[in-house]
């Protein structure tokens, strides 16, 4: 099997400005934060970002990397409103496409299945249609229903974080929820998986039931060993959300000087420096 091990920098070197990138996880849960931090350090910009948004969206918006955000919500979960997202919305200058959460899943599913769209009731009659006038409806060929035709959300690249992976790109979640990470990978031209631990395939399979190996190597184009890589979002059962750090992040985000200090302290250096600064035993 092909060895797909690479570093965060290798992943970012494969990304280009103007790409459409999907980020797995959900809110402030199991986000591929070390990959996001690597993106922050790069000169890649002008991105279209598709996400069940959390601090991934917040950080990339704050760094001016995002031209177009496609999302159902952006939240830090225990802190309902993401401060950078909120500031970016209120400042303007970025295109925001806000879908119902289920529509987002449906668009990824359509892309994964190479379909131009999938029909749904979600979004009908709501302002999702008013703010996205390109959305069309489709009449059932079998009845009278007129359904919203959710267009495929095709991704150039997907970034997800898992608990375990092997070097070939099989990857396992050990927490309670797979979120939509497999769908993000399948909707993408190329999928990059970071993991808390990279282990031999036999160890991966011994680590949980077969169905916990959510991501299969045919999805995957790169595997990154990223211990504590989801910090400060949760990565159950390896660790929970770092609530104290998240609060510090949210507090700093509200004030330009405090944010500059936060960036200097945590984000100006590489991932090792970040992990040292947050006190992790990487």
């Amino acid at each position: 099997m092909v060895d797909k091990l690479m570093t965060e920098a290798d992943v970012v070197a494969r990304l280009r400005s103007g790409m459409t990138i999907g980020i797995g996880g959900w809110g402030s849960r199991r986000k591929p934060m070390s990959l996001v931090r690597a993106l922050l350090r790069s000169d890649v910009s002008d991105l279209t970002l598709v996400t069940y948004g959390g601090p991934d969206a917040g950080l990339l918006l704050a760094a001016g990397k995002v031209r177009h955000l496609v999302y159902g919500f952006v939240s830090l979960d225990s802190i309902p409103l993401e401060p950078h997202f909120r500031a970016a919305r209120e400042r303007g200058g970025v295109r925001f496409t806000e879908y119902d959460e289920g529509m987002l899943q449906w668009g990824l599913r359509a892309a994964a299945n190479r379909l131009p769209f999938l029909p749904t009731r979600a979004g009908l009659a709501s302002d999702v249609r008013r703010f996205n006038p390109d959305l069309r409806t489709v009449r059932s060929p079998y009845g009278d229903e007129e359904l919203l035709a959710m267009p495929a959300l095709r991704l150039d690249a997907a970034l997800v974080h898992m608990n375990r992976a092997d070097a070939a790109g099989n990857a396992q979640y050990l927490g309670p929820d797979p979120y939509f990470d497999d769908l993000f990978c399948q909707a993408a031209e190329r999928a990059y998986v970071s993991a808390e631990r990279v282990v031999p395939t036999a160890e991966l399979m011994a680590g949980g039931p077969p169905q916990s190996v959510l991501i299969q190597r045919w999805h995957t184009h790169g595997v990154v060993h990223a211990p504590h890589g989801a910090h400060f979002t949760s990565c159950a059962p390896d660790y929970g959300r770092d609530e104290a750090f998240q609060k510090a992040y949210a507090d700093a985000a509200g004030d330009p000087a405090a944010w500059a200090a936060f960036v200097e302290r945590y984000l100006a250096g590489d991932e090792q420096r970040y992990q040292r600064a947050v006190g992790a035993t990487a």
Partner: protein
Amino acid sequence: MTDVVEAGAATATLAEVCAVACARAWRDDGEILASPITVIPSIGARLARATTDPDLLLTDGEAALAAGVWAVDAAPDELEGWLPYRAVFDICWAGRRHVMMGPVQVDRFGNANLSAIGPFDRPTRALLGMRGAPGNTTNHATSYWVRRHSPRVFVERVDVVCGIGHDRAAQAGPTAAEFLDLRRVVSDLAVLDFAGPDGAMRLVSTHPGVGVDEVVAATGFDLALAEDVTTTPLPTAAELALIREVIDPRGLREREVRPR
């Protein structure tokens, strides 16, 4: 209003009256998922299952279906199933769910906003986003909880239609309206439904000590009135015991809604 009202031999706070009013939203719903958002509706849903509606399904707030009754600020003792987000969309689109959301604005016909205040392109206050509100309302029963009833929340027209109302659904055609099922609105002043003219919001009951005029004045549109506006039922002694001893022993409810 006063913060303490008589309930038979016991006394109930406003928060407890609201929680019980929320519980009644799920009455006779059968074997469906009750999805309460925030503390008071969560108390209500757990109370409903512990008393009148034992068949309801409830989640632990993460990815599990929880059995039994447990405290709003604790993890459940027993689980009965798995419900990751992907399965939440399945149960939602199957129609086997009744959500109670907390909008920042809701209008006469039940259009609800969770997304932003002001123009969408450059809002004066950006909030969560659409979340699941468009899909929820086009697929299954929906109720709303408003912790502070005011003309800023109960508005003539919401800035962003996330959850759809009766007027918008009717304009969009029969498929949008097919499974629209707006049930009730519980606020800190009153209980309302959508049995007014053309599916307009209607005042059903006011909480103990609240006058009809007070609710009308706190509502930013012409509020339809039920023929006989009653007083919101008080918690029974058994309901109060469940709330205080089992579901919310540390009193989170009193932080979510306060007497005026």
